[in-house]
């Protein structure tokens, strides 16, 4: 397989992520599948930022350590990453600011020549990159015109100048017969799925790494006809969203761990009042403020049990663009079909990674909800525990929801028999949810599907795990649905497995605990908790050591 990895790095404020996206777009335009990893500290200016753009002829969802090209806008980039250069690789560096091997690009000189602003140094570097790998100028121009709508001509002049100053040394060819693919962040794929699933409103308070969903949906709110609301706090977020839901609007919220803490009381309210709500929870390094811009998978058990009392909830952790799109839409549907809180559990790596999809996203029709009967009772008992929803105003009927234990019509009750009836109604919803979700797709099985050693993972590490499984001839098993645990699908995926290696970005192995409950034992835990995702080569090494 032909593939390329490009690393671009500089200081926060240098426009590294944007330059990375230009490069990613160019690869996509050439017909490549693209994944872009974005690494930056929690600050606005100064710290070391870098992106790795990986382009390949088949879908990729993770980065590799080895890079073919380093684009150094600061010295740190050259110093920190030079040992990752592949043998045929080279460096383009901003000269004279940076000292390095490879080709010098006198960015300040170019900027001075065209009176460019300092931030346009990143455009220069993109131009240099394109020159180096031989992208036709017409394609470069088209991408810049599309992606840099402000000061486009100036940017073009600068890019062109850099393009022409660089000597070609690697040749990137278009992929035959392939056409460009959309390039969106994990957060955007989730947001798009929410739209496809039919949300009417999105409510959120900014919090890295979930803010991308808010920013994306706010940017398309008008054309999509949805409300996007950013209120005073996460407490307000979840309760406003439940107000929206009560009034019949399909609503999602988004946050990260600290903000989610503040939502837990509302989640429990959704459980009792049986209000549909979708919660996008993007994990980052914890506890507490932790590492806001680095990754973790340490909120799985918290998400499974957040909120006092017992009530059904659905949790899916997508690992690819299409999964994010599909499960976000499905989360909206399930929330409304069962009147429960549903979760899309993401993490920094997936949320802020940038992806072309593995195939074209398909929008499925939504099923209409059952009609209520009259006189209306909000919590009418039914065989599957699901009471039909009626939305106010409805002439002659009242709609009452209640955070207290209540009777069928929603009026507070402390009666023991009514309590039992309501608890059992929720238990039946849980059973129905389990049947609806323990279905093909709930667990992804890949690699050598007959191998007796399996790599187990969930969420974003799937990208790297599946390449490692391929490389080492191991089975890959990865539940997407985490609650209710898809016992049947998981059992099928694990048939014949004798050795289990769990890979997780946490320090305790949260999936291990979930599996132990289900009666599975893992043999090896490969845990990473420094906030950085595994690259393919790193994980291959770690797995190889324990696989045999």
């Amino acid at each position: 397989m032909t593939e390329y990895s490009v690393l671009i790095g500089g200081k926060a404020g240098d426009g590294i992520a944007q330059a990375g996206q230009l490069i990613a777009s160019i690869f996509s335009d050439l017909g490549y599948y693209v994944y872009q990893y974005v690494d930056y500290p929690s600050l606005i200016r100064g710290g070391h930022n870098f992106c790795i753009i990986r382009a390949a002829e088949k879908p990729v969802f993770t980065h590799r350590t080895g890079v073919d090209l380093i684009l150094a806008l600061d010295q740190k980039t050259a110093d920190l990453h030079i040992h990752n250069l592949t043998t045929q690789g080279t460096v383009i560096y901003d000269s004279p600011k940076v000292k390095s091997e490879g080709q010098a690009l006198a960015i300040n000189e170019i900027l001075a020549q065209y009176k460019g602003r300092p931030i346009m140094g990143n455009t220069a570097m993109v131009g240099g990159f394109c020159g180096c790998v031989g992208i036709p100028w017409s394609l470069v121009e088209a991408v810049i015109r599309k992606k840099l709508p402000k000061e486009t001509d100036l940017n073009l002049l600068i890019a062109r100048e850099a393009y022409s100053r660089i000597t070609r040394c690697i040749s990137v060819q278009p992929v035959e017969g392939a056409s460009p693919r959309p390039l969106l962040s994990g957060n955007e794929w989730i947001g798009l799925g929410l739209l496809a699933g039919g949300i009417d409103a999105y409510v959120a308070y900014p919090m890295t790494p979930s803010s991308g969903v808010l920013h994306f949906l706010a940017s398309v709110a008008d054309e999509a006809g949805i409300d996007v609301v950013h209120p005073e706090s996460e407490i307000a977020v979840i309760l406003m969203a439940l107000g929206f839901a009560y009034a019949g609007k399909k609503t999602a919220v988004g946050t990260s761990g600290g903000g989610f803490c503040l939502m837990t009381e509302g989640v429990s309210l959704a459980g009792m009042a049986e209000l549909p709500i979708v919660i996008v929870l993007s994990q980052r390094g914890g506890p507490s403020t932790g590492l806001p811009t680095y990754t973790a998978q340490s909120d799985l058990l918290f998400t499974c049990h957040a909120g006092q009392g017992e009530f059904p909830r659905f949790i899916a952790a997508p690992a690819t663009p299409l999964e994010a799109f599909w499960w976000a839409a499905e989360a909206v549907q399930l929330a409304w079909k069962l009147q429960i809180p549903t979760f899309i559990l993401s993490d920094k790596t997936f949320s802020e990674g940038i992806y072309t999809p593995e195939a074209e996203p398909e929008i499925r029709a939504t099923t209409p909800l059952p009609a209520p009967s009259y006189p209306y009772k909000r919590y009418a008992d039914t065989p599957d525990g699901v009471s039909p929803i009626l939305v106010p105003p409805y002439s002659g009927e009242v709609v009452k929801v209640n955070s207290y234990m209540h009777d069928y019509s929603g009026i507070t009750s402390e009666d023991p028999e009514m309590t039992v009836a309501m608890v059992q109604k929720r238990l039946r919803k849980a059973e129905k949810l389990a049947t609806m979700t323990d279905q093909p797709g709930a667990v992804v099985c890949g690699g050598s599907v007959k191998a007796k050693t399996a790599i187990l993972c969930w969420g974003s590490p799937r990208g790297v795990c599946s390449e490692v499984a391929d490389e080492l001839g191991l089975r890959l098993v990865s539940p997407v649905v985490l609650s209710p645990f898809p016992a049947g699908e998981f059992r099928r995926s694990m048939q014949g497995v004798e050795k289990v290696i769990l890979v997780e970005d946490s320090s305790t192995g949260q999936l291990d605990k979930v599996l132990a409950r289900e009666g599975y034992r893992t043999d090896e835990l490969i845990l990473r908790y420094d906030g950085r995702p595994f690259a393919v080569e790193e994980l291959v090494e770690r797995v190889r050591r324990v696989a045999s």
Partner: protein
Amino acid sequence: MTSDETIVTQTQNTWCPGCGNFAIQHAMKFVIQELEAEGMARDHFVLVSGIGCHAKIADYFQLNSFYSLHGRTIPVATGIKMANPNLKVICFAGDGDLYAEGLDHLIHAAKRNLDITVICHNNRVYGLTTGQYTPTSPYGYQGKSTPNGLHEYPLNIIELLLGAGATFVSRAYTRRLPHLKRIFKEAIMHQGFAHVDVLQICASFFNATTWYDERVYETNESNAGLFEFACRTAKQWNYNDDTKIPIGIFFQTRKPVLPEKKIQKEVDRGVIVKKILEKAT
């Protein structure tokens, strides 16, 4: 007006005898029926309550209701109102609920001039949890969490709301029923954020009946449009001292409201999603 009892539920009422909540329920029942007679649809009312004695009102009215969480009437009401601006959303909140646990929401709703009505059942005590102090309890109040007396002065809610930019700020008293009805009606009719701080008798834990009866008087509201005037009236009683207690509409003005009415676009999600994907390609 003849009373139409279909507006109340059959639920057993469990407020204590002498509780001011009866007056609030009665006045609101009257006002809603009056508004109905004037053409407002009953099914367009949505009541949002917090948690506390006050909140039981949600159970007692046969109207749409969202019996929410302690402190959270306002964000729930905000969501409902934003989702459907045609609904008449009324919050019934407690003083612990609204002025302690959920105070930030109140200030932000006032800031936004959110078009809802907020009734605070201000009994100056946590009723349902048996009598602890609230932000409007007087200095020295002895409740179970402050058995040796409270060492804080109360918030002057009226001043606070004026400072927050509320466009309708009023106070009422549960033992002035005609006045209470009038204020409720004006508050509901007000376009924008309307707040009624109701001095509510708690018969069990803060029975200030005689004290209030002797001090409460109805203000002349002719200057209710003047902010400086409102500030002066607000200062007349600081929720603590032994002075006369004005009730009435202290301040009323017009400002742009939220949510802005907007035309609901019918959009085909498939088309939008495709468009976004194309743009991202």
